[in-house]
C-alpha cells in the first residue's frame, strides 16, 4: 500500500494480484453481471492508484479500505441504474451458503466472530435484511418487495437492526 502511495507501479501490480479477486467477488455479488463488474473493478483500481496516499493505516486495514472503495463504487453504480429484475433465488441461495460457519480469516478474527455473534442475535428476517443490503447491495425498495413490507417499515426495521447491532458490538 505504501509503495502504491509513492507511485510505485510494481507495488501496484503486486497489490492488484493480491486483492483483485476479493474486490471482484465483492462487486460481482452486488452487480450480478460479469462484464459490468470488471468495468467497475477497473475504475476501482484506477481510483486506488490515485487515492492510495489518502490511506491511513490507523483508521482501517488495507483490505477493508480497498473493499470499501469497491463496495461504494458498485453500490453507486447499481443505484444509478434502473431497478432491474434481480436473480433473487440465486442470491438467496448464495446468502445462505455464505453464512459464516467457522472462525474468520481475512479480517481480524476476533471482530469477525463478534459481528457474527451479534448478527445471530437479530431475528432471522432482520439478519437477512442486513446481509442482503451489505453483501448484495439491495436497496430499501428491493428489500421491501422481497419482505413484502412497505418501504417505511423496512427503514424502521433497518434502524432497529443497526442499533441493536451497534449496541451488541460496542458493549
Amino acid at each position, binding site marked *: 500500500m505504501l509503495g502504491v502511495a509513492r507511485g510505485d*507501479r510494481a507495488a*501496484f501490480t503486486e497489490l*492488484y494480484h493480491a486483492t*483483485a*479477486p*476479493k474486490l*471482484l467477488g*465483492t462487486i*460481482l*455479488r*452486488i452487480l450480478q453481471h460479469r462484464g459490468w463488474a*470488471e468495468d467497475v*473493478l*477497473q*475504475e*476501482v*483500481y*484506477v*481510483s486506488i*492508484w*490515485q*487515492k492510495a496516499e489518502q490511506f491511513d493505516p490507523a483508521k*482501517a*486495514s488495507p*483490505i*477493508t479500505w480497498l*473493499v*470499501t472503495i469497491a*463496495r461504494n*463504487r458498485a453500490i*453507486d453504480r447499481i*443505484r*444509478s*441504474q*434502473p*431497478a432491474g429484475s434481480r436473480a433473487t433465488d440465486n442470491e438467496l441461495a448464495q446468502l445462505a451458503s*455464505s453464512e*459464516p460457519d467457522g472462525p474468520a480469516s*481475512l*479480517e*481480524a478474527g476476533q*471482530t*469477525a466472530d*463478534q*459481528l457474527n455473534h451479534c448478527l445471530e442475535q437479530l431475528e432471522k428476517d432482520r439478519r437477512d435484511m*442486513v*446481509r442482503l*443490503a*451489505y*453483501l448484495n*447491495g*439491495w*436497496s430499501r425498495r428491493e*428489500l421491501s418487495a422481497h419482505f413484502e413490507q412497505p418501504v417505511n417499515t423496512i427503514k424502521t426495521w*433497518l434502524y432497529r437492526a*443497526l*442499533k441493536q*447491532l*451497534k449496541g451488541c*458490538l460496542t458493549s
Partner: protein
Amino acid sequence: MTERDDLDMLAAEFVLGTLDAGERASVASRRQRDQELDQLIRHWENLLSPMNDEVVPVAPGPELLPRIERQLDELQARPDSRPKADRKPEAGSTVVTLRNRLRRWQMGTAVAGVAALVLMSVLVWQPAPESRSHVAVFQQNDEQPAFLLSVDLNTRELTLKPVTAKPLEDRSYQLWIKAERLGPKPRSVAVLGDDLTVAADVLQGYDAQLLEQATFGISVEPEGGSPTGQPTGPAIHGYLYPTSERPAGQRL
C-alpha cells in the same frame, strides 16, 4: 431520536448501502465537510467490514490488468503542470474555439425537441497558472446558467454548483457523460443530491483525455434517478473548456 442518532443512522445506512442514489450523493458530498459524519461512516465501515469475509473471491480475466495499466500509463504520461512559457492566454480565441467545438447531443428521442433548444456557453476567467481547471456551463436558451461544473484534470475532482437551478419536488437531476470512447449512449455519472451537488470523486474512473473531449448533460429524472439507465427527461448540456488557455494544438 436525537440529532446525533439521526446522523449515526444516516452513516449506518450509507455504509450498509440502502440509501438511494440522491441520498448517497448527498452523504458523500456532506462527509467531505462534516467531520463528525465522516467519522461515523468510518466507524460503521469498521463495524460491518467482517461481513466482507463472506465474499467468495473471483479471479478477474487476464486482460483486465493490462487494461488498467494502459489507463495508468495514460495518466502518468500527462504532465502535472506545464511551463508558463507554454501558455498564451487569449480570451478572444477561447470563445471562437469554443463555438467551433460546441456540440449538441441528444440524450434520448423523448427529449430531442428540448435538446435542440439547448445552448451552451462558457465562462472564461483569469488563468490559474498551476491548475488544469476546466469548466462547463449548463444553460437553457438565453436564461441564466442553471449549473456550473468544473473539473480539475490533474486530480479529476469535480465540483458542480447550482446557479439558478432549484431542487425539484419528487424529481432528481442526474449528471451524464458522453464520449466517443464510451460508446453511443450517455453514461450516468451521478444523481445529484438534495443540495444539487455531487461527490468530488465521481469522475475518478475516467482519464483526463476522455474528460477533456466529453460532453456532459444534466437531465431531470424521476426521484432517485433515471429508471432506465438512460436519460428520460429534459436535458441541458455542457462541454468542458479550460479556464487557463493553452493553444489548441498543444492539448493532448
